[in-house]
C-alpha cells in the first residue's frame, strides 16, 4: 500500500510531439493518499486509460515521474511495481480452475503452497467465490470471471494499488450494482489504494471518496462527489455530472449583475475578475423552481421519470431544464423560473468566476 504521486506527467503517443494537441496527457500533477478510493471520470478518449497504464507501468510517460511512497518507479515494469489491474473485459486463464487463477500471481512469485492456500481461501471468501474454486474458470459467468480478475489483484498482500479500468462494462445491469457495492466493501476491508476509471458518473460517485474529472488530457476538477455536484469548477463538469446535467445559460454582465434575456439573475457571490470573455450562468435543474415572478419561459417538454419530473422550458431561445417533485406544468404553459441564488454560479470562458457566498 502506498501513496501515489504523479509529478509533471505528460504523455504523447507520437514519437515527436510538438503542439499540445499531440499530447494525450497534458501536464498532470496529482497526489493520491495511501488507502484512498479514487475515481478517474471522463468521456471516452480523455486520457484516463493512458493515465492508468502509466501508473501500472504498461506505458512509460514522455515526461514527468510516477512516485510510490516517494520512490521513483517511472521506469519500472509492471511486475516490479507491485500493482494490480482489473481490465474492462475479464481476463482469466481459461485452462485453469478458479483456484489456480487466483494462485497464479503468487506462484509466479514463488510463494509456498501453504501460504497460497490460506490467501486464496481468504480472498475467495471475500469475493464469494468459495463454492466455485475448483471449477474451470472458462465455464463461469462474466461477473464471476470479473471477480476472479479482481481476486488475482487482491491476492497479493503487499500490493501498492489496485486499479480498475471500467471493470463493469460487460456485466449485466442487475449485477453491476451488486459488484459495485462489493468493491466498496472490499476497499473497506483491505484498505488498499484503489483507482477506478470509468465514464459512468454513478460508478465514480458511488465508489470514490475523491473523483478526478478529466477532459482532453487535462484534469478539470478534483473533489468529493458532493463538491463536484454542487460547485463544478468548469461547465464541462456541470454537464458531465448530474442527470440531466447543469443548465449553462449565456448571460450578459452589466452594472455588476448578470442578465439573462434582460432579467437580472442574482448570483451566489460577486464576479471575481471583471474582465471580458464569454460569461455563462450555471445552475442545476434541481435548484430551478416555478414561481409567479422571475424569468419568463414556456414549457416545451415534460418527462416523468418516476422519482421526479424533468421539464424542459424555453426562455426565449435558451433551453432551461427544471426538476420538480410533483405538480408538473402542462406543455405549452407560460411559467416564470426562479433560480436559487445560493446555487447560481457564474462561469467565465467555462471556468467558475463567482465567489462563494459571503466572500
Amino acid at each position: 500500500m502506498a501513496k501515489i504521486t504523479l509529478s509533471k506527467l505528460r504523455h504523447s503517443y507520437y514519437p515527436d510531439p510538438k503542439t499540445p494537441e499531440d499530447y494525450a496527457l497534458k501536464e498532470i500533477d496529482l497526489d493520491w493518499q495511501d488507502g484512498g478510493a479514487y475515481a478517474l471520470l471522463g468521456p471516452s478518449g480523455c486520457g484516463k486509460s493512458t493515465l492508468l497504464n502509466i501508473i501500472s507501468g504498461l506505458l512509460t510517460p514522455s515526461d514527468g515521474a510516477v512516485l510510490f511512497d516517494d520512490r521513483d518507479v517511472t521506469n519500472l515494469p509492471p511486475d516490479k511495481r507491485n500493482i494490480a489491474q482489473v481490465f474492462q473485459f475479464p481476463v482469466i486463464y481459461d485452462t485453469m480452475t478458479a483456484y489456480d487463477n487466483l494462485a497464479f500471481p503468487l506462484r509466479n512469485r514463488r510463494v509456498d503452497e501453504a501460504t497460497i492456500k490460506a490467501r486464496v481461501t481468504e480472498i475467495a471468501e471475500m469475493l464469494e467465490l468459495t463454492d466455485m474454486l475448483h471449477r474451470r474458470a472458462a465455464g463461469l459467468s462474466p461477473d464471476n470471471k470479473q471477480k476472479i480478475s479482481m481476486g488475482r489483484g487482491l491476492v497479493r498482500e503487499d500490493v501498492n494499488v489496485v486499479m480498475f479500468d471500467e471493470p463493469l462494462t460487460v456485466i449485466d445491469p442487475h449485477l453491476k450494482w451488486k459488484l459495485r457495492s462489493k468493491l466498496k466493501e472490499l476497499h473497506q476491508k483491505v484498505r488498499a489504494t484503489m483507482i477506478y476509471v470509468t465514464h459512468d458518473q454513478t460508478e465514480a460517485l458511488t465508489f470514490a471518496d475523491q473523483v478526478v474529472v478529466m477532459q482532453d488530457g487535462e484534469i478539470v476538477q478534483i473533489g468529493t462527489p458532493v463538491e463536484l455536484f454542487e460547485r463544478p469548477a468548469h461547465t464541462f463538469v456541470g454537464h458531465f455530472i448530474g442527470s440531466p446535467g447543469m443548465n449553462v445559460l449565456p448571460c450578459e454582465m452589466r452594472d455588476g449583475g448578470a442578465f439573462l434575456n434582460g432579467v437580472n439573475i442574482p448570483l451566489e457571490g460577486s464576479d471575481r475578475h471583471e474582465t471580458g470573455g464569454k460569461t455563462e450562468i450555471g445552475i442545476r435543474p434541481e435548484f430551478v423552481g416555478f414561481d409567479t415572478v422571475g424569468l419568463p419561459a414556456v414549457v416545451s417538454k415534460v418527462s416523468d421519470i418516476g422519482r421526479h419530473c424533468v421539464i424542459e422550458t424555453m426562455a426565449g431561445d435558451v433551453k432551461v431544464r427544471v426538476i420538480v417533485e410533483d405538480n408538473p406544468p402542462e406543455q405549452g404553459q407560460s411559467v416564470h423560473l426562479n433560480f436559487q441564488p445560493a446555487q447560481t454560479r457564474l462561469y467565465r470562458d467555462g471556468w467558475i468566476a463567482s465567489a462563494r457566498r459571503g466572500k
Partner: protein
Amino acid sequence: MKTENQKAWLFVLPVLFLVAFNALIPIMTVVNYSVQETFGNNLFFWEGLGWFEKLLNSDRFYSALGRQFMFTGSILAIEIPLGIIIALSMPRQGFWVPICLVTMALPMLIPWNVVGAMWNIFTLPDIGLLGYFLNHVLGVSYDMTQDPAAAWATIIIMDVWHWTSLVVLLCYAGLVSIPDAYYQAAKIDGASNWAVFRYIQIPKMKNVLTIAILLRFMDSFNIYTEPFVLTGGGPGNSTTLLSIDLVKIALGQFDLGPAAAMSLIYFAITLLVSWVFYTLMMKDDR
C-alpha cells in the same frame, strides 16, 4: 391445438439430393465394387467380404499403411511446432505484416503437381540447384532416385515447405485475436514468457490448432500428387504411400474389387482418426 404435418421434409429434400449426388451415390458405387469380382465386358461376380479379408491379411497393405502413418506423423511433428514458432515470431502490426502474410501464403498457391515437378528438378543431382550443391559443393552423396532415405527426406521437406504456411496462418489468426489485456494482465501477474505461451497463447490457439492438425492430417494422409510426381513411389516401394498403392491397384492392375475395398478401409481410417482426435480435443469444452 397444434397442427402437425410432414411439410418440413420438403425443405430437407434439396440438401438430400445434393448429398446423394456428391457423397452417397459415389460411395455406394465403391461399396458395390468392393463386394464383387470384375471382369471385362461388364461381368460381375459376387465376392462378399473376400476382398476385405484378403487385404487385411496382405503385407503389402500394412507396409503401405505403415509408410503412410510415418509420413503423416513426420510432417505433423515438424509442421505443427514449426508453424507455431513462425506464427509467434511474426509481427502483430505494422509495415511487415502484409509482406509476411503474402510470403507465407505463396507456397500454398502453387498447384500440387507443379510443386512435385519443381522439387524434382530442384533435387536432380547434376543440374538441380539443391542436388548439385549437395553433391558437388558439400560433397554429400544425395540421389533420391537411388537412396530411400534421400527420397523420404525430400518428400517430407517438400511437404513442410508447401504446407507449414497453413499452420502459420491459422495460428497467427488465433494469436492476433488475443486482446492486449491478456498480455498486460500476465505482465502484472508476473508471468514468465513460458507461462504466457502455456496459459494464454496455447489455450487461445487451441481451436485453430485443432483445425490445423485435422486439415494437415487429412490432407497428408490422402496425399498423392506431390510424391507421385517427385518419386513415383520409389526407389523400389520405399515411398509408395497408401494412395499411390491404391492407384497402382485400381488403374495399374485394374483390380476394381480390391481397390474399392482398400478405398473403404482407407476412408474409414481417416474418418476414425479425425473423429477420435477431434473428440479428444473438444472434450474439455463441454
